[in-house]
């Protein structure tokens, strides 16, 4: 079976862009990706795409060109981008197509995501009594994790500090100034133990990736970035997910553990082979938990890792080199693809100020979302 290669990548800067809707940001990213690949829209044989709040992705054809292309919409919460990429890769691996696109975009209103109990199978009282907040879930989950593994609250602050430090060096990031640890730790609390610097915000942005078969990629002649694997998994029994009025006494694994294990197996590599990782950091606690769930360190080792700077850009395993969701914000449909975009840039060696030294060859992404979905990719050059 031939490898799938990422031959082009485009991004619309994350954050807030007044006067440009989510889909137009998507179009911007697609045009950039086409130019990056050196192809025209007419060359693209198929597309998978999605957004959570900015309309059906297939409507993009009215602006990009009515070429009759197969365009399938994907809706998988925070894993929308990851799922689009996964589906696009499968379409090429099947041998049916040679060149296609995965795209994700979004534009969310300010403030925490608002959710309706009925759409989660919950009674109305759950929302009326004040439980329908994602921020509570993140707070309660990391509160337990810190307690269980003897990690200090400062560990959370160190994650945010690193995110803003990396974001300051990233042209597509939203938050582009550093914040010191003391300021972070003293910020107003949102949902204990997480304060306002420890949560990402709903935002705007778009990413498009062009995928090709190995044969087609060679013809195109650009840098060969191979998508060694793209895996998406849903939750196992006993996981702890958002909007749970109860959780089982018997604790189980996570969707991320399943996706990570499968990805390493499929790619034939292990955590030690990874040179750079982008891990879902909806809030600072998520990055801490995901460091261990993806097999990069043991549960409870994270504080030492951060103190020693092992996940900094010049550390042994740089994590969230573009500042992650904490610095870029979270447009749901685009977030997972941003991680892959960043790895493509890093593997090409064109990340400028935030470039990981030592010519990284193998790069990892993991996106996690409600209600317990996780998608992992491993890229290699």
């Amino acid at each position: 079976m031939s490898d799938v290669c990422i031959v082009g990548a485009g991004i619309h800067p994350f954050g807030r862009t007044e006067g440009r809707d989510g889909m137009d940001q998507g179009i911007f990213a697609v045009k950039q990706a086409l130019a990056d690949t050196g192809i025209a829209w007419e060359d693209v044989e198929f597309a998978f795409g999605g957004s959570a709040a900015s309309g059906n992705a297939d409507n993009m054809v009215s602006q990009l060109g009515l070429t009759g292309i197969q365009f399938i919409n994907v809706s998988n919460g925070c894993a929308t981008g990851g799922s689009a990429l996964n589906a696009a890769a499968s379409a090429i691996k099947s041998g049916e197509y040679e060149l296609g696109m995965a795209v994700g975009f979004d534009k969310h209103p300010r403030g925490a995501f608002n959710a309706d109990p009925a759409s989660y199978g919950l009674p109305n009282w759950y929302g009326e009594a004040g439980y329908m907040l994602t921020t509570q879930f993140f707070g309660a989950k990391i509160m337990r994790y810190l307690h269980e593994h003897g990690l200090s609250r400062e560990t959370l602050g160190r994650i945010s500090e690193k995110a803003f430090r990396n974001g300051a060096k990233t042209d597509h990031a939203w938050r582009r100034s550093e914040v010191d640890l003391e300021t972070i730790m003293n910020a107003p609390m949102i949902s204990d133990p997480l304060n306002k610097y420890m949560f990402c915000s709903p935002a705007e942005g778009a990413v498009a990736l062009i995928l090709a078969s190995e044969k087609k990629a060679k013809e195109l002649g650009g840098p060969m970035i191979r998508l060694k694997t793209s895996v998406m998994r849903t939750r196992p029994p006993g996981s702890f997910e958002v909007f749970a009025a109860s959780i089982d006494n018997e604790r189980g694994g996570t969707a991320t553990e399943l996706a990570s294990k499968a990805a390493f197996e499929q790619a034939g590599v292990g955590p030690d082979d990874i040179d750079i990782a982008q891990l879902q950091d909806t809030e600072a606690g998520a990055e801490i938990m995901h460091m261990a769930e993806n097999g990069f360190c043991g549960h409870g080792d994270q504080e030492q890792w951060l103190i020693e700077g092992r996940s900094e850009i010049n550390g042994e395993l740089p994590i969230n080199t573009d500042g992650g969701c904490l610095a870029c914000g979270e447009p749901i449909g685009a977030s997972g693809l941003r991680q892959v975009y960043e790895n493509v840039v890093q593997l090409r060696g064109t990340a400028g100020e935030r470039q990981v030294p030592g010519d990284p060859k193998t790069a990892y992404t993991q996106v996690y979302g409600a209600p317990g979905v996780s998608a992992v990719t491993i890229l290699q050059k």
Partner: protein
Amino acid sequence: MSAQPIAENLFTEDMRALVGARNKDTGQIFFPLPLTPNDHIEPIALASRGTVWTYTVQRFPPKTPYAGPADPQNFKPYVVAYVDLPGQTMVESRLTGVEPDDVKIGMEVELTAIPLDPDAPDAEQKLIHAFQPVQGES
């Protein structure tokens, strides 16, 4: 008419327990009882005592569908915990009778009912479930 529970089938008739659900096939217990009856699910009275497994504090007034007092000036942060009811399930619940900064994982708590909006007139008051620290252990 005095204060009423915010929903039917949330508490048992005597208000001394929460109504959970038991899957007859797997034995799994969960909360709350689903709105739609199901042959595989039976109601079960949950234990009224447990321990705090984890918690967080709601520091800002939630948006709709929240129906409690949400005036930013007078908003009082509330604790949301998961209470471990041994051998049953862990129930998401507010804590009452303890300041947010005094909550500890592992503390023993028991079920009670509190008004969603303490300032509402009696007749309109809706009761929600909450757990409070166990007092005067004998």
